[in-house]
């Protein structure tokens, strides 16, 4: 059920001529916000305030490769118009876009190439970049050289003798009267820039040069995020690490990029050219093992040196990653694994963070009851487009900030967070367990569905036993001590609430405090 939005400007029908600002063309578009692209049973209750006209800034590099695809609502502006999407699909037209793409996803490249000539509708569908990206990654893994688009990359890698410039004159085939929310939204999200108002709010606490005790008492214990400045000042990486340095230094070493592994050079070649809704993200948990020198060019900030998983030695779960990605790459809402806390240090570039406390599920996110699955069906940009606005009115606002080079953010355990790179960025992140979250971690590892939830290690089921025993061995009595403290705290809190109910706590300034 797709409802029509109030005012729409069709891309192919009208382009409001506006004075061009430096490099941006503002195209006013109102998207049908109800178009849930993933068919779920969950009803979407959130609605963007439709009174507010929304303009979107397209990247100046935005190709016209939407092929003239328009959002479905535009169809209603063309009375009597047929949707070439449907006529071109024949009997398949009743299937949703997602289903058509699922079927096409089962085909080989040659099949898709042939189908492109069946009708304009098939042309648009078979051009969908995700199909070709999957074909490239499945067949070539990380050993591809990206060129112009995933489809062209596929052709150049599989049919190197074919001259891909042959069809260039017609690569911008404009299809008239093709309306599809899914395909339009997909193109839009790949080419959208972050709106300034999504970047305005910066309400995180910033600290510089605080003591470890200060950090533990004011942030780690109460589980509050904080942005720490000045703790990377002695990092070699801060001055040294840039693209050229890393490419030269790391040579042919392969880094984890999503489902595949790639050389840095090949990754940058891809990230420079690709305009995607969900760009491939370089996220490698073994960078210091692969290139020990990299590990020595940074050091863990003093606040995070208590690292209890280290008692497991080589059997510890993944705990440190190098993260590299272009503007638009990032991670959609999730909670870090194993109930650990984390810190994230930006070496180059900048990241936008949105954080929600553990008891507040972000809008648009649907965790399964056992927490094993987090369904955030929308991409990062789509989340901002469709859900960010609703947080304005919430009493429990998210914590937000932009983290720049030289800054470190502390992500307390259990907090939801979303990150998007605003420019090409290089960062290091580590997850850790200290005495402050040791009990949480043990509880987490103890859970009956540990085999699904626990991550970063091959030995999920035994991790609880192993870790507990190792802690007992290295720090005997710690678990007991912490458990006792926690019980005491619980008892005191109960006491407090009892007295609260007995005394009229509003009278006078007298307040119990423990």
């Amino acid at each position, binding site marked *: 059920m797709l409802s029509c939005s109030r005012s729409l400007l069709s891309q192919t029908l009208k382009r409001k001529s506006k004075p061009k600002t430096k490099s941006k063309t503002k195209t006013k578009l109102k998207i049908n916000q109800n178009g849930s692209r993933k*068919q779920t*049973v969950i009803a979407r209750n959130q609605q963007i305030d439709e009174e507010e006209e929304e303009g979107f800034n397209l990247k100046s590099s935005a190709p016209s490769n939407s092929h003239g695809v328009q959002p479905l609502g535009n169809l209603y502006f063309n009375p009597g118009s047929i949707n*070439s999407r449907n*006529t*071109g*699909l*024949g*009997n*398949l037209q*009743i*299937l*949703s876009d997602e*289903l058509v793409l*699922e*079927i*096409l996803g*089962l*085909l*080989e*490249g*040659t*099949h*898709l*190439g*042939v*189908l*492109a*000539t*069946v*009708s*304009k*509708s*098939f*042309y648009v569908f078979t051009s969908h970049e995700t199909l070709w990206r999957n074909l490239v990654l499945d067949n070539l893994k990380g050993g591809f050289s990206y060129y112009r688009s995933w489809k062209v990359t596929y*052709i150049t890698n599989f*049919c190197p003798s*074919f001259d891909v410039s*042959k*069809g260039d*004159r*017609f*690569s911008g*085939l404009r299809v008239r009267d093709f309306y599809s929310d899914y395909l339009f939204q997909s193109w839009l999200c790949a080419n959208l820039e972050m709106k300034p108002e999504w970047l305005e709010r910066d309400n995180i606490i910033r600290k510089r040069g605080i003591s470890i005790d200060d950090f533990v008492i004011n942030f780690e214990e109460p589980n509050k995020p904080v942005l720490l400045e000045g703790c990377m000042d002695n990092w070699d990486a801060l001055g040294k690490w840039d693209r050229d340095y890393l490419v030269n230094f790391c040579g042919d070493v392969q880094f984890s990029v999503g489902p595949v592994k790639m050389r840095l050079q090949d990754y940058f070649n891809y990230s420079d050219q690709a305009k995607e809704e969900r760009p491939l993200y370089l996220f490698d948990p073994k960078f210091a093992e692969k290139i020990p020198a990299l590990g020595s060019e940074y050091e863990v900030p003093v606040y995070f040196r208590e690292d209890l998983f280290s008692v497991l030695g080589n059997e510890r779960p993944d705990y440190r990653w190098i993260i590299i990605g272009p503007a638009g790459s990032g991670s959609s809402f999730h909670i870090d694994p194993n109930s650990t806390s984390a810190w994230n240090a930006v070496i180059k570039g900048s990241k936008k963070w949105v954080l929600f406390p553990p008891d507040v599920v972000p809008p648009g996110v649907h965790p399964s*009851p056992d927490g094993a699955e987090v369904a955030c069906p929308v991409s990062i940009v789509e989340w901002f487009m469709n859900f960010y606005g609703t947080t304005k009115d919430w009493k429990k606002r998210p914590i937000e900030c932009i983290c720049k080079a030289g800054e470190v953010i502390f992500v307390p355990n259990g907090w939801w967070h979303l990150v998007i790179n605003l420019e090409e960025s290089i960062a290091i992140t580590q997850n850790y367990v200290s005495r402050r979250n040791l009990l949480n971690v043990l509880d987490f590892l103890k859970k009956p569905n540990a085999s699904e939830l626990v991550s970063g290690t091959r030995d999920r089921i035994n991790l609880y036993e192993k870790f507990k025993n190792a802690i007992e061995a290295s720090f005997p009595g710690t678990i007991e001590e912490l458990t006792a403290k926690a019980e005491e705290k619980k008892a005191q809190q109960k006491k407090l609430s009892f007295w609260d109910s007995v005394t009229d706590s509003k009278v006078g300034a007298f307040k119990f405090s423990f």
Partner: protein
Amino acid sequence: MSTATVESKKITLRTADNHEFEVDEAIAMEFGTVKTFFDENPDASREPIPLPNISSQYLSIIIEYCKSHLAFRVRESSSSVEDGAKAYDEELIKSLDNESLKELILAANYLNIKDMLDMLNQGVADRIKNKSVEYVRRFFGIENDYTPEEEAAVRAQNEWAFEGVDPDDD
């Protein structure tokens, strides 16, 4: 030796054409949609579940599929069991005309039965791969909306895909 009759819970499903199907709870739980509903509403009364999008013709096929595959899964996994399941799927797909295949995809999608949906999608994919353009158009009743120039241009752009494809392949 007493043979205890196993009383399994039943769930009733009502189709668009007002037929009611009573199935074992285990079968109904193969439908992701139904399972999610009961996961989130554990105390919901077991009234007939309306399925306004699905006709009895297709629901009965779906129920048969789920029954059979559940039975396959219960048996110990072996190559003969796998072959059995595969054979069942092949027979099913063969028996379906395009219209039924398409309707079942919609139904399996609505009910969120992943395995069945994957199998059906593969069925469609198998019917269109390695076929000529003309065949695909006839097969799905598709109107060619390219002008001759446009079609030639798109063909040139995708010529690499046509190498080795027999144009008269039917």
